[in-house]
């Protein structure tokens, strides 16, 4: 079934530890995105990628890094996790970047940083 997969589903992490959230899509979409979802704030864009080999910063990029080595994968790394990074993280993709293009979302990763 075509779509976006994310791993892990949930994770509890000690502060200061490194963590990579995985995201894979099989729709051959050019653009991919990482959002965090916090109560009352909706979804905020962390990083995005217009196409393989390029990345850009979103609204809340600090403390996060991404890479886009190929079309399908877009991992999000927390180099040294802090409690304020406790959130639900969603990966999304679209055919192209830009507001006209519908974004498709993965099921999310619930991350708790203690």
């Amino acid at each position, binding site marked *: 079934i075509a779509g976006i997969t994310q791993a892990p589903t949930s994770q509890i992490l000690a502060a200061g530890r490194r963590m990579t959230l995985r995201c894979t899509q099989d729709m051959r979409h050019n653009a991919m995105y990482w959002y965090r979802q916090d109560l*009352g704030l909706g979804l905020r864009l962390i990083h995005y990628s217009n196409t393989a080999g390029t990345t850009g910063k979103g609204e809340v990029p600090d403390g996060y890094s991404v890479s886009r080595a190929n079309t399908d994968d877009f991992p999000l790394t927390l180099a040294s996790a802090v409690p304020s990074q406790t959130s639900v993280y969603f990966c999304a993709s679209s055919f192209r970047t*830009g*507001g*006209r293009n519908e974004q498709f*979302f993965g*099921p999310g990763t619930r991350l708790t940083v203690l």
Partner: protein
Amino acid sequence: AQSVTQPDIHITVSEGASLELRCNYSYGATPYLFWYVQSPGQGLQLLLKYFSGDTLVQGIKGFEAEFKRSQSSFNLRKPSVHWSDAAEYFCAWGNYGQNFVFGPGTRLSVLP
């Protein structure tokens, strides 16, 4: 900066009643507008979208939304709510060359 507001944090309606969820955007240019639904523990699913043309758009699950440029609004409606519609609803704004801006969401509860 562009912003999307959803004035109602939480709405409760009875099953079978009509529903309207409000959404306003701040940017004046012709926007692309979307409504997404998020069921508990799930990702977001697109309900409907507006790009241009007819200002009343139909979506999945019996939802519709109306774009009103004069009010900078894109309110979501459903004539008769079902218990399965209980979820979080997000309005989103986009524009050419821009990424999305999401509203904070409205949580819908449905009473039996």
